[in-house]
């Protein structure tokens, strides 16, 4: 098991010695917080003009997370780059020549990257919440209210899992361009379209991001999802596990 410690240490050195880590994670935080604050402020000024149904179901917590739709893209880039950099640079050969145990290598790498993403995601979620609530003014909620703390922690978990899911996909596809080309449009556009169209809504609610959103919501009136917050979270975890298993299967079977 000494090997695991060595790989963890090595991966930490790798992750902190490239600028893309700072850029992607920094961008995830800034974009999520800034956009969330903007939309929260906009919501407060327009609250009176909103239709009644929206005002009744208003979820101040989820509103302050409005920036996550864009911020998660930076998380995806982080997750993809952490894994596929090894392939695009050819480092994978050097790495695997040093650690022939491929499972140890891959999962140590993902552990380090996940932990890094988790810390940033949690900070992002909490900052987004507090800044967003400040912007909402009289419509704000408090962290002490029912389910709110769960939703804020859920926001951090959601962003972490998006990054981990991307790592698994990148390990399967091995190419940064291909991985980003699939993940970015999927999470930014396709998933939300599928979720909005009536015909595909029933299926779309089992997609990783839509299921994962549930854990960040406090008000779920008018929502017909057949799972609760943690049920949705579990569905997302399942997706992540499948992606990681696929990534490992590819790494184990293929020539490096």
């Amino acid at each position, binding site marked *: 098991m000494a090997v695991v410690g060595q790989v963890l240490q090595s991966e930490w050195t790798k992750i902190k010695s490239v600028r*893309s880590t700072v850029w992607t994670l920094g961008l995830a935080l800034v974009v999520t917080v800034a956009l969330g604050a903007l939309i929260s402020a906009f919501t407060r000024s327009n609250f009176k003009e909103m239709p009644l149904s929206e005002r009744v179901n208003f979820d101040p917590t989820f509103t302050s997370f409005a920036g996550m739709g864009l911020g998660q893209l930076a998380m995806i880039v982080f997750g993809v780059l952490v894994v596929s950099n090894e392939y695009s640079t050819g480092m994978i050969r*050097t790495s695997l*020549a040093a650690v022939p145990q491929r499972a140890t290598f891959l999962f140590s790498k993902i552990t380090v990257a996940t932990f890094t993403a988790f810390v940033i995601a949690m900070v992002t979620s909490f900052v987004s919440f507090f800044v967003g609530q400040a912007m909402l003014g009289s419509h704000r909620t408090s962290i002490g209210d029912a389910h709110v703390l769960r939703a804020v922690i859920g926001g951090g978990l959601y962003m972490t899992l998006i990054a981990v899911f991307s790592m698994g996909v990148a390990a399967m596809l091995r190419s940064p361009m291909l991985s980003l080309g699939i993940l970015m449009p999927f999470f930014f556009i396709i998933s939300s379209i599928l979720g909005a169209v009536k015909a595909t809504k029933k299926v779309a609610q089992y997609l990783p991001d839509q299921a994962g959103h549930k854990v960040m919501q406090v008000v779920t009136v008018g929502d017909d999802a057949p799972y609760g917050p943690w049920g949705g979270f579990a569905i997302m975890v399942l997706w992540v596990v499948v992606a990681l298993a696929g990534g490992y299967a590819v790494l184990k079977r293929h020539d490096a």
Partner: protein
Amino acid sequence: MIEAVGLTKRYGAKTAVHNLSFQVRPGAVTGFLGPNGSGKSTTMRMILGLDQPTAGHVTIDGHPFRNLPNAPRKVGALLDAKAVHGGRSARMHLLSLAQLGGIPARRVDEVLGVVGLQDVARRRSKGFSLGMGQRLGIAAALLGDPQVLLFDEPVNGLDPEGILWVRNLMKQLAAEGRTVFVSSHLMSEMALTADHLIVIGRGQLMADMSVKDFISANSADFARVRTPETEPESREKLTAALVEAGGQVLAEPDGGLRVTGLPLPRISDLAHGADVRLWELSPHQASLEEAYMRMTQGAVDYRSTADQVAALAPPPPGHGYGHPGAGAPQGWAPPQGNPGNPYPVLPGEQPNPYAQPQAAAPRPPQAAPQPPAAAPAPASAPADLTKRDSEDAR
């Protein structure tokens, strides 16, 4: 010690390495020679457990690489100098590799000093030249102070001083009792660096012998004889006389004759006896590069004509025809439909390995001087040019 037994790697229909068996022993530099695309890198990757062989196996000290305990301390490898994250500094790159192998961080500074990169250690490797990249790759291979070292084309992109440094480093590592396996496509470089040679062409073993044996088997003296071009019959007359006297005669594409086994005065006497005038009678020495190219050219040729694979046989020394005992041409089979250019004609008079490519490179590839064109191997192009250089006099 590296041991390969029946190593085979197929990618779909393409066979990259075919039934390769060899041993790489400690205490010597073993050169791994072959043209581009002959399977050298694939073999190296299989040794390191990166690629799974289709058949056969390769072991290091008796273990397959993936089962090797503490692999980073036992085996060091340079596969691709460009295989670094350009955004990471040289020191951080090496540090991450050191940590991967449980190697103390101060060893990183040691190897940076060994390869001479200590001054640029904190610079991002994106700006490194190919030569600096090679040095960084060599540093990575040396990190674990391993007993077995693999270098894939380590002198690519290095300046002459760097090449000399690598050559001495290899020799020093071997002298310390390590196993050093170096691939190259430059015979001239390997002749100076290696103690033992493994030559492959098209994924198959073509030679496995010591450099000394290779040199004595392949760099035999020969004479070039030219008869008047206006009298083709005198050429045949002379050939018959020379063969009768026990010489081996090889017709050269440009109409000359290449004679081995007879001293120059004897050739002159025989010509005189046969009443043949000579336009040229000159002593030559075949270069190792030429011997190597002749050995592997068959392999290069066969790529375009798949039906000739059966003719791919390890070339025994002593090629030529006309000699009663020699039988059919050996070592190289003239490809059908292209009888005039059976092998690239090289000067072989240039001992400096670096002068050769540099002399040939700047010249635009002109039309091949041989009448039957369609020179199949790109390798023959510079050879032809240098040939012209050395024979401007005639």
